[in-house]
């Protein structure tokens, strides 16, 4: 125990197993869930936790635990794709802005600033009403919302790299354009972006469940943590367990990815020990 560098790896050690479990839960839901999440029997509705149903049944007699496990699929998938979209779009814009500088930089960053000043949930809600409520559109909407954040980050990192000596050296020997970006800039952007991605992932999961909670994300009967919490709210007096399990799962997911982000930061760039 003593030989482990806790300062560098501590958080990762705690968060990675949970993250792995979450990914497994979504990938192998059918194996882990005791019941079919859609199977209903109104005769057993609103029953509390029991040996047969660890987290009780919901308003249609479906097993809450199974639905919670299956709901992880939506959260994980939306998180991954939304982050991918944000990361890609943001990196393209950020690196371009920093690379070209001047007017392009100014315009792009002004636009990013304006987009950034919209509260995320506001944009998300309007975009979802715009695009139509489906999981695919949730990925798109949240991805778009992440672009300004990633753009700012990659631009800042690129600017730092640009000031470094070795970049000037590379330009001297004739490396330019795409090769410069690919060889020198992007590898340095990688670290901070990965850290940001982990945090963005947890925020994506939060946003998706907030959207489903408001009825603008995954629609019932498809189970999502957000819409389960919302339904559970209507039954909070008779059957508080309906909200409890998905809420706990959501909390755990977001928390572990936030810790993962911290852990990655400790690993890749300890100076940023925030």
């Amino acid at each position, binding site marked *: 125990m003593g030989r482990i560098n806790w300062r560098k790896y501590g958080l990762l050690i705690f968060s990675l197993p949970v993250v792995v479990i979450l990914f497994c839960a979504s990938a192998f839901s059918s194996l882990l869930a005791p019941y079919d999440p859609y199977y*209903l029997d109104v005769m057993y509705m609103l029953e509390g936790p029991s040996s047969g149903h660890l987290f009780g049944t919901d308003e249609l007699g479906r097993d809450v635990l199974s639905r919670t496990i299956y709901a992880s699929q939506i959260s994980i998938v939306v998180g991954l794709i939304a982050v991918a979209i944000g990361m890609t779009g943001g990196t393209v814009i950020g690196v371009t802005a920093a690379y070209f500088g001047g007017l392009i930089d100014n315009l792009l960053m002004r636009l990013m600033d304006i987009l950034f000043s919209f509260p995320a949930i506001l944009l998300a809600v309007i975009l979802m009403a715009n695009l139509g409520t489906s999981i695919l559109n949730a990925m798109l909407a949240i991805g778009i919302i992440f672009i300004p954040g990633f753009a700012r980050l990659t631009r800042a990192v690129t600017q730092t790299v640009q000031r470094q000596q070795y970049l000037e050296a590379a330009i001297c020997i004739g490396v330019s354009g795409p090769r410069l970006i690919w060889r020198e800039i992007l590898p340095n952007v990688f670290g901070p972006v990965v850290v940001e991605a982990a945090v963005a992932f947890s925020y994506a999961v939060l946003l998706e469940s907030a959207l489903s909670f408001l*009825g603008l994300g995954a629609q019932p*009967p498809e189970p999502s943590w957000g819409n389960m919490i919302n339904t559970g709210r209507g039954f909070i*007096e008779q059957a508080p367990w309906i909200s409890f399990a998905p809420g706990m799962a959501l909390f755990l997911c977001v928390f572990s990815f936030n810790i993962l982000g911290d852990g990655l930061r400790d690993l890749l760039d300890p100076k940023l020990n925030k």
Partner: protein
Amino acid sequence: MKYPKHISRLAVVVAGTLALGVVFTAGAQEAKYGGTLVAAFSADPGGFDPAHGPSGMSHIAIEQVYSTLLLLDANAQPYGGLAHNWSQSEDGLTWTFNLREGVKFHNGEALTAEDVVFSFDRIRGPDSGYAYPSQVADIAAVTAIDDLTVEFKLSQTTGPFEIYMAFPGSSIVPKDLVESGWDLNAKPVGSGPFKFISYEPRSAIKFERNADYYETGKPYFDGMVYRIVSDPTALSNGMKSGEINFSNEVPPKDWEAIVSKEGMVNAALEGSRYYWLIPNWETPPLDNVKARQAIAIALNRAAIVKGAFYGQATPLLGGVIPKWNWGYADIEFFKPQGDIEAAKKLLAEAGIEPGIEITLNMVSSWPPMMSMAPIIQANLSQIGFKATIETMEVPRYWDEVWGPSKFDITVMYWLSPLADPDDFVTNTYFSTSGVNVHKGGSKEMDDLLLAAKSAVTIDERKELYRQQQALSLETMDVVPLVNAWVLAAHTGQLKNFKPMRTGFLKTLKDAWLE
């Protein structure tokens, strides 16, 4: 001291009378004046002008502020409103109404036949924007014979005419005021039991008693507040805490808890808000009547009543016209639990192989739809249909599913604000109706509907509707599901309130608070 005999006999008589008097007054209900009724509703009104609409909540407010020629009692039977007397000509094409004397609008102006003519011409005009043109389409002319007599000339006999005259849209508005440019939509002025005070969007509509109401002595409340509470849980909490003393929109999931509270009165009754499953006739094999009948027979309506309505609905085992209505055709076509075997047999007869994939398009904003979707899906799979549930919220649904009829199967409900069988069935079954999204119907059905509407006597109409109901089950245009109850509950302090089948609240003028 001994009293003289006649005095002691007198004393006994007096004592006896007093005792009897106490007994009688204790039993009799003495109307009490005063108090403010706080009612809760879930939606905002769209405006307060009877010529506009449609908006159910608008009508709930309009019926308190305005008066109509006729009114409906709790059993949906018409009685005199502004008209104390009315008659129909022999050929059924002319109706004459005799107005009460001395009726005043809230601004003090007298209500005369002129106002009646004006009100109806207003909604009959081609550009009126009136949302119920079918009710006034048969009126050829409205004329004021004298100050207190109005004559309606119809282009064809119309059975439900009296019902239409009791409809909030047929409210009488003040001609001079409207012509002077007054915006009734924002500030309604009528001759109803209550005067409009204010409307705060998403908050409340306030009314005060009309002391000059033509029904002397009524209404009894000092005023009413219609609170708008869009969150169903909040509505339930308000009723449980006593803040709200009346609602006819109690959420089904909280009904038991609310009604079992001390002092709460259960005023639930069956109205006409039925749900039907709509198979798209343009999607094979749903174009085959046997397929539609099979689906209809297979559905477990009892499960839907329990799962989607918590028991507060009546399964429709035959046609959609409910039991309480005179048009009810006592035909039992479905079993409450459904009959999977019989359904499978029908499909086999029609040569339809199991394994067909169809989509069930449901509106996600309405909890009963969401609850019944999986139940329907399960029933469908039992007879060999692989149904996937696709959900979306209301505005998208109207644009993408309902409008262009892009669905295989969907579910909708019809809330009839009229108590006439014509309103229950025409919109659904008439081939050119705007609501005929399933692209069904037949000439036979159309003819029956038209005949039943225009027949003159109730008996004639009753027989025609019986035929129509039987036909509707033979052709299975749409699949009747359940009739959800009007869940009305109120504090025990509200006395003499008779809930209306239509879900309207005109009868509040006859009720008082202890």
